[in-house]
């Protein structure tokens, strides 16, 4: 028989398992890999988590709502390319400037979020109104949006983003790059929204049981549509951040990022069946993946190992999730 305190302790450990894994992995890497244990490397890990992290927020929300969005990677690429075309001064960039110059930051953000939101709305409309399968709808978007990126860029790239935007990619605050702070703020805001507002609770309820939620008088269709719009808009923001980081956009920008975002979401404890998941866990999942990427970079291992380790980690995360659920059932 376990005491209430022990039960609370076990539940806390289970709920935050991915954070413990992160700490464990960082400790092992720090002890075994030369040059790993330094502030610059930790800052790099946080910075590199920015794009997949932000993208994973929207993806996690859609998955928690019981659906799927495969288009986020291409949406991010499209936003990045549009930002690049408008505000880069070389390559295919048109080099538009605004007065005062800092206005480019909110304008670029609004455009990127709007572009992503529109594609998200299209996905959501097809899923909700036409009852099409989200997997197929967003797979189609994944393909046609990437095609659009190639079409509007003609396969060419844009470079030299406007200096106020580059400022965000270069400057740091408390050792952490400004760009990474944006991701952290996004996680804080959406953690609050998902955990403390009726919207977040209702989305989680829909993912758990959409029919029961509908019978409880909650507008399921509207909320599901909104989750798709949010996923698209957040992916648009991720695209802007990606363009800022690389000071422009190429037609293959962000390739393969979807799978990292999915891995982070699953490792972070979000159930692909919907109705279960917390965003801090997703952030820990993203940090864990970035740590592994960085460790592989520093060890000089062939990059194939990244994918092998990534696959193994996802599998381990799903296994751990199953074990976690069994333990919770035993405790109940």
């Amino acid at each position, binding site marked *: 028989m376990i005491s209430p305190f022990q039960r609370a302790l076990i539940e806390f450990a289970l709920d935050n398992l991915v954070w413990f894994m992160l700490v464990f992995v960082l400790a092992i890497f720090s002890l075994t890999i*030369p*040059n*790993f244990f*330094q502030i*610059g*490397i930790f800052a*790099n890990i946080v*910075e*590199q988590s920015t*794009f997949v992290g932000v993208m994973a927020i929207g993806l996690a929300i859609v998955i928690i709502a019981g659906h799927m969005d495969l288009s986020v990677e291409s949406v991010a690429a499209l936003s990045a390319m549009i930002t690049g075309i408008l505000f880069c001064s*070389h*390559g295919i960039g048109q080099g538009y400037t605004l007065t005062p110059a800092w206005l480019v930051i909110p304008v670029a953000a609004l455009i990127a979020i709007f572009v992503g939101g529109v594609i998200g709305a299209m996905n959501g409309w097809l899923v909700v109104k036409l009852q099409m399968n989200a997997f197929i709808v967003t797979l189609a978007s994944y393909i046609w949006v990437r095609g659009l990126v*190639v079409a509007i860029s*003609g*396969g*060419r*790239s844009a*470079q*030299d983003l406007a200096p106020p935007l*580059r400022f965000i*990619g*270069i400057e740091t605050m408390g050792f952490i*790059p400004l760009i990474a702070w944006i991701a952290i703020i996004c996680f804080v805001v959406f953690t609050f929204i998902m955990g403390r507002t009726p919207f977040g609770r209702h989305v989680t309820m829909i993912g758990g049981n959409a029919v029961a939620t509908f019978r409880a008088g909650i507008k399921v269709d509207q909320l599901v549509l909104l989750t798709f719009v949010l996923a698209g808009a957040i992916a648009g923001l991720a695209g802007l951040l*990606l363009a800022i*980081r*690389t*000071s*422009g956009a*190429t*037609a*293959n*920008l*962000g*390739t*393969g990022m979807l799978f990292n975002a999915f891995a982070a979401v699953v490792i972070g404890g979000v159930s692909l069946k919907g109705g279960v998941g917390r965003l801090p866990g997703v952030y820990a999942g993203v940090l864990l993946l970035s740590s592994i*990427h*960085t460790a592989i*970079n*520093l060890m*000089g291992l*062939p*990059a*194939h190992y*990244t*994918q092998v380790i990534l696959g193994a980690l996802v599998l381990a995360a799903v296994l751990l999730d199953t074990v976690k659920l069994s333990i919770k059932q035993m405790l109940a």
Partner: protein
Amino acid sequence: MNRIRRLLISSLALTAIGLASPALAQSKGTIYYMVPTLLDEFQTESVSAIEKFLKDVGYDAITLNADNKTDLQQSQMNDTILLKPAAIVLAAVDFNALQPSIEKARAAGIPVIEFDRQITATPSDFTSVAGTIEIGQVAAGEIQRLLKEKNGEVKGKILQVLGDPADPYSLDIQKGFEDKMKEFAGVTIISLPALQWAPENAGTIVSDQMVANPDIDLIFLHAAHLSVAAVAALEAKGKKPGDVMMISSNGAPVGLDLIRKGWLNVEVEQPLYAQAAAVAMFADKVVNKQEIKAGTYKVLGLDSVVTIEAWGPNIKIPGAAITKDNVDEPRFWGNLKAPADKIVPVE
């Protein structure tokens, strides 16, 4: 009545001219160009160049994009063979996997021209390449020069950022480069691949390595578009142009811009226009199955050597090292000034 008759005769005359015109400008046939991807500027510009140059010598050109997928390119080859084109120009996604498709096309009587990516395992009708191994060797020569200028001798630490580890193009450059650098014991090379040629992956590698190995003297990137992200990562680490020497390859417009800004020291060019022009120059000989003789040919002013290899006639066009001194020369495809003069077929 006479007016009507005149109108009728005029109409008939115009129709006859209209019908005759296509016959006058009749195409010599259709040549398919199998481009491996449209996600990088070299390939995008290769489409424009090959289509223009083939038109110059009288062929229609149709391009099929394989999206970097070997199986898709194999299917495209199978479909194209059924259309019986005059020839196929192939820039293979995978050098080995396309071998059966090449053999199938040639068995069906369709000549195959290899463009940019040399396939030696099976014969082709013509091959036009800059030589990926040679690009690595040219880069090695430039890197030796730069290290000597900086350190007094060829020694130092080099970060080599490859492209996708599954792409033989990048592996060939690595081979050419590392073979030439082997003899210098004082040189340390850290080699890491940017998965899927994604620039953000290159940025991450540079970012991590500049923290772990701040004494890196030079960064060698296997494509110019990777160097943009590398520069962004260096900027984020507070570096200025010239603080870390950089070299990249393929000669894309982005690379040339970075030379002008002082970030890149050298860009090793793949002579895209000349490679494409060579395809057009020899197209008639290939299509008509005439003998191609070994020797030196001028291709857009570049002395290019045709040799008869086990895999067929092979033209190798020298890649150039682009520096601040010659960056504005229009012969470099990165300046996107395709030669306006018509290509003339080889007699």
